[in-house]
């Protein structure tokens, strides 16, 4: 297959287009501006596609909501502060069971923070992010090629489960250029027909898509219905990568950019004869708790490494309980640690 050198933000945009996405609304924010820029040009050549530079992140996510109501594959993207603004719409779409893909190219925070790559929005992404106690599927790519596969998968998951899916990257994933190849584009007309869309009540009863339910008993049932859906997702959709785990005594758990750094660190300490391995969650929600728990029984210790002050570590600890000691190394604020730094942490723990 033809490989081309592309920037991460462009890869997401191209992969989304090939997944049949035909609606994009967004608002500029660094470090993901290249994504809407690419989309504006790409969609200009597609007569059935709409690109809107919205007046705000709020407007953008609500435009996506409207597009999704018509059954069109729709997405938006932003970076941390902008994603906070989109939480209103994400909560509504979770409540209305509307599919959408939301890419968060994370930067430093809290507040305005900075524009450097971090993983400081793990909690926000994996705990729903907005009000009302819902979940979103969260996918964490760690390479250009995985941006292709996970972006396309995000649209499938969103449609299958009728819910927003978060593509959680960081400034590095968004900016870095890597060789990637794309599968053939999907024709939106070939996608499974959605029977619930707003299309005008022709030859059928009128439809309503709403999250409002004033009757507490009915609202309770809707909440449990969502939970049943989330349980199904937890059973079927967890995904992770194992690297050199067969003989590992220390396992480093990391996702996204941190996992690439961790892989380099594992290779370094392996060179010194230290049996370390990498467990990389690809779905952050649902978190691959069961495989990690199984793994914990056969190893001596876990090191969680994140580009934040310690967020995924809570899921790791909930997964492994007392089976294995869990250590942490984190660099928040946009500092990109080197494999050497992480290797030193591993070496310190193993020697």
């Amino acid at each position, binding site marked *: 297959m033809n490989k081309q050198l592309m920037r991460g933000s462009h890869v997401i945009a191209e992969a989304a287009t090939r997944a049949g996405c*035909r*609606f994009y*609304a967004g608002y500029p924010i660094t470090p993901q501006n290249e994504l809407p820029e690419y989309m504006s040009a790409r969609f200009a050549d597609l007569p059935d596609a*709409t690109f*809107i530079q*919205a*007046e*705000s992140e*709020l*407007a*953008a996510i*609500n*435009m*996506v*909501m*409207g*597009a*999704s*109501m*018509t059954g*069109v594959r*729709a997405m938006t993207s932003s970076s941390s502060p902008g994603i906070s603004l989109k939480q*209103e*719409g994400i909560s*509504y779409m979770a409540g*209305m069971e509307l599919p959408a893909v939301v890419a968060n190219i994370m930067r430093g925070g809290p507040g305005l923070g900075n524009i450097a790559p971090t993983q400081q929005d793990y909690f926000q992404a994996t705990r729903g992010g907005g009000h009302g106690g819902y979940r979103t599927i969260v996918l964490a790519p760690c390479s250009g090629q995985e941006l292709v596969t996970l972006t396309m998968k995000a649209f499938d998951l969103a449609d299958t489960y009728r819910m927003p899916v978060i593509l959680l990257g960081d400034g590095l994933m968004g900016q870095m250029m890597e060789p990637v190849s794309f599968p053939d584009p999907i024709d939106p007309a070939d996608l499974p027909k959605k029977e619930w869309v*707003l*299309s*005008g*009540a*022709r*030859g059928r009863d*009128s*439809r*309503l*898509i*709403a*999250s*409002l339910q004033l009757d507490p008993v009915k609202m309770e049932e809707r909440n449990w219905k969502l939970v049943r859906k989330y349980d199904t997702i937890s059973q079927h959709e967890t995904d992770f990568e194992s690297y050199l785990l067969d003989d590992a005594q220390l396992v480093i758990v990391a996702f996204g950019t941190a996992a690439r750094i961790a892989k380099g660190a594992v290779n370094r300490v392996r060179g010194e004869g230290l049996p370390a391995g990498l467990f990389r969650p690809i779905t952050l929600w649902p978190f691959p708790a069961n495989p990690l728990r199984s793994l914990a029984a056969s190893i001596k210790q876990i090191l969680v490494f994140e580009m934040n002050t310690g967020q995924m570590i809570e899921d790791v600890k909930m997964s492994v309980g007392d089976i294995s000691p869990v250590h942490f190394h984190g660099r928040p604020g946009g500092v990109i640690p080197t494999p050497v730094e992480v290797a030193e942490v591993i070496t310190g723990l193993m020697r």
Partner: protein
Amino acid sequence: MAQQVFKRPESLKDNVFHYCPGCGHSIIHRLLAEVIDELGIREKTVGVPPAGCAVLAYNYLDVDMGEAPHGRAIAVATGIKRCRPDLVVFTYQGDGDLAAIGTAETVHAANRGECLTVIFVNNGVYGMTGGQMAPTTLPGQKTTTTPGGRMALRDGHPLDLSRMLALAAGSVYIERTAVTSPKHIIKTKKAIRKAFKVQMDGQGFALVEILSACPTNWKETPIEACKRVEQVVATQYPLGILKDATHEPTADNP
């Protein structure tokens, strides 16, 4: 044989309105349903109701409807219309929804000339939440958050968003009407009809602001409240056409 001269519009469900006595929503719902029927667009219309008293508009209007967060109806409608330009899409919004929390969405949709029909019901208070001050509340008007009356320099001046929207290059038709008397109701229906026609002809952004009474929160009888709309509210927000840039569709310029 008796001839039926009045009936429930097909676009109106056979449900009893939950609105208070004297409230304009039920009249406006009916007008909307009549217009949708008369234009023959029930099967290709999608409505977006607001947060507020009319959040339950879908219990009455028998067309496809999609809910929007408070203030975002026009953004949601934009997404629907851009994906399905063949549909007729309207929003139904109150003054708090459209002129406070949704100001940005409203102004920019008008500026882009989104091909939408906006029904803007202005009753000068937040009705559903219990009668707090709205952006449209008149100077001196008592609300639950302006117990001594609205003081412009403390609480802001009454906001005439429709007039601002008339300045937007993308807006095509903006008219302010009332539903306080048969005469005004007939005018309102004409305006709603035109606002739908503007969209169906692909001309751009159309909005009808309808001055409506909220007797419950104004603590007046329905008759007093209607009188207040005509004699007091309409002096702050004069009735009439604020903008009409419509043209007869031609082959070159449909």
